[in-house]
């Protein structure tokens, strides 16, 4: 029998939740405050926690963050149940890395359905296993930004709290592809006085889809940001988001070398043409020299032109690397870029969007 820990300072509601969940076949443990909830969670290792937000001393968001920081608890399913029922409150709950959010008041059947859904999905739950993916190519024009944008949107669509970072010192095109008017860029942030987690959060721009974006400047930065700031930025975002997708510059410089050391996976994108193949050979050698683990590297073939180009098996043989993914040519892609309407949103069943979805 699955165990659910209820953390809510409203004793009446605690009792109602206990009865409801017990009738639903769950074992229920209750507590009225955050610190005791954390202690009970560590001692009992429940399958799920239902956490209120408005609790004195330690609020629900703080409780959830503490749970996610604790390796023993990080995998627990967490539902925030709160009377703070506005859209900004849902965003705050997901930003705290809860798996889901439900406003009070609620219908008992709705709660049981939500709990059941979350428990069922638990086997595929990826909450604590955060992942940062760098999308990279040493050759410009092979579609890395398009791949990064659509990858981030695909992850976001899977209810994974995702941030897309355009780590180009400028000009970056993520904002353009999302038709996003970003008031702050990562260069602005890195040149600011404070480089804290909170200041990173405030420097993000939210796309209409809900995806959080750290944009690059349109005008190239006059001086490169310090590498410490890049590390702080990546680390702060990794602390906040389940998935961080970084669109890396097409240059083997300090920014890329710093970032690549802190990503879990590198999507190395190439187009089936000679120039791209040569650049990919160069990128693989540079990463080998930098002692980047080969297991991190996932090769993505992006058929970004209508003509077939080099045969993919021949490329695999030449590189000694198999492809993780093969993205087909999509005639809608140019229009999607021009209109600032990524295929993952505008034509989610198009060949390119479908191929990226299949990879996440």
């Amino acid at each position: 029998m699955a165990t659910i820990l209820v953390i809510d300072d409203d004793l009446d509601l605690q009792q109602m939740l206990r009865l409801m969940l017990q009738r639903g076949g769950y074992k229920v443990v209750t507590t009225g405050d955050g610190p005791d909830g954390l202690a009970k969670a560590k001692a009992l290792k429940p399958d799920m926690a239902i956490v209120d937000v408005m609790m004195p001393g330690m609020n629900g968001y703080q409780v959830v963050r503490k749970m996610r920081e604790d390796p023993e608890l990080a995998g627990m399913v967490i539902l925030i149940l709160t009377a703070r029922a506005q859209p900004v409150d849902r965003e705050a709950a997901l930003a705290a890395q809860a798996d889901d959010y439900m406003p009070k008041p609620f219908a008992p059947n709705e709660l049981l359905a939500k709990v059941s859904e979350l428990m069922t999905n638990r086997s595929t739950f990826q909450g604590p296993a955060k992942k940062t993916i760098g999308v990279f190519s040493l050759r410009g024009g092979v579609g890395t930004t398009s791949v990064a944008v659509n990858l981030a949107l695909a992850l976001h669509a899977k209810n994974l709290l995702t941030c897309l970072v355009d780590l180009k010192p400028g000009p970056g095109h993520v904002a353009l592809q999302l038709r996003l008017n970003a008031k702050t860029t990562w260069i602005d942030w890195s040149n600011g006085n404070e480089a804290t987690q909170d200041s990173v959060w405030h420097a993000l721009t939210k796309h209409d889809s809900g995806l959080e974006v750290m944009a690059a400047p349109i005008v190239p930065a006059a001086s490169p940001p310090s590498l410490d700031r890049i590390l702080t930025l990546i680390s702060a975002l990794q602390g906040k988001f389940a998935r961080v997708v970084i669109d890396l510059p097409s240059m083997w410089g300090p920014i890329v070398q710093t970032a690549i050391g802190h990503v879990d996976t590198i999507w190395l994108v190439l187009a089936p043409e000679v120039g791209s193949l040569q650049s990919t050979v160069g990128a693989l050698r540079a990463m080998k020299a930098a002692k980047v683990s080969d297991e991190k590297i996932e090769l993505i073939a992006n058929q970004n032109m209508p003509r077939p180009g080099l045969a993919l098996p021949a490329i695999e043989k030449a590189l000694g690397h198999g492809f993780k993914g093969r993205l087909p040519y999509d005639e809608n892609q140019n229009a999607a870029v021009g209109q600032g309407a990524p295929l993952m949103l505008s034509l989610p069943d198009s060949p390119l969007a479908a191929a990226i979805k299949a990879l996440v």
Partner: protein
Amino acid sequence: MTQVGSRRLTADIFADSHRLSTQMALRGRVLSDLLNDTSTLYLELDIAYVSRIDHPGEILADYALSIVRKDRLSFVVVASGLEMALKQNQTMYIHRRQWPVFVTVPYFEITGQIEAPANSDLRALMATGVERFIPVYNATATLSINQSVKFSGELILINKTSIEVLCIGDKSSQ
């Protein structure tokens, strides 16, 4: 379907620059009575969770006891629990009609339905009556400088003295 929630009324209280979320034990009274009670300038809160308007989802801090000046509030959002916020006879008044309304207060624009006489007289609505807070039903308050930040509720009680613009639409319903 029966809804399960707290016996306390959850309200979001907005001053110019901050949001205070609170859960009020009303002890037999309704929220509008407390707000419109002219015998005291202040409203005491058992507990308040404070957020800044520019990041209204983040809780800065919580305080066990707070007091707010009613005349300095802009508006109060009640997401659900109308019966704990307004007296029933106020909502059932049969000689009044509902009018679509657009109101601006500092930093926010509010839309919803207001109850007013069939021959609606805006000047009378603003100038007469002892009640400081006007109820707007099924209302949404939108942050003017960032329209993605919205607060909706069954009821928003707007402080008349904070109102900058009040517009009433021409489609009414009984």
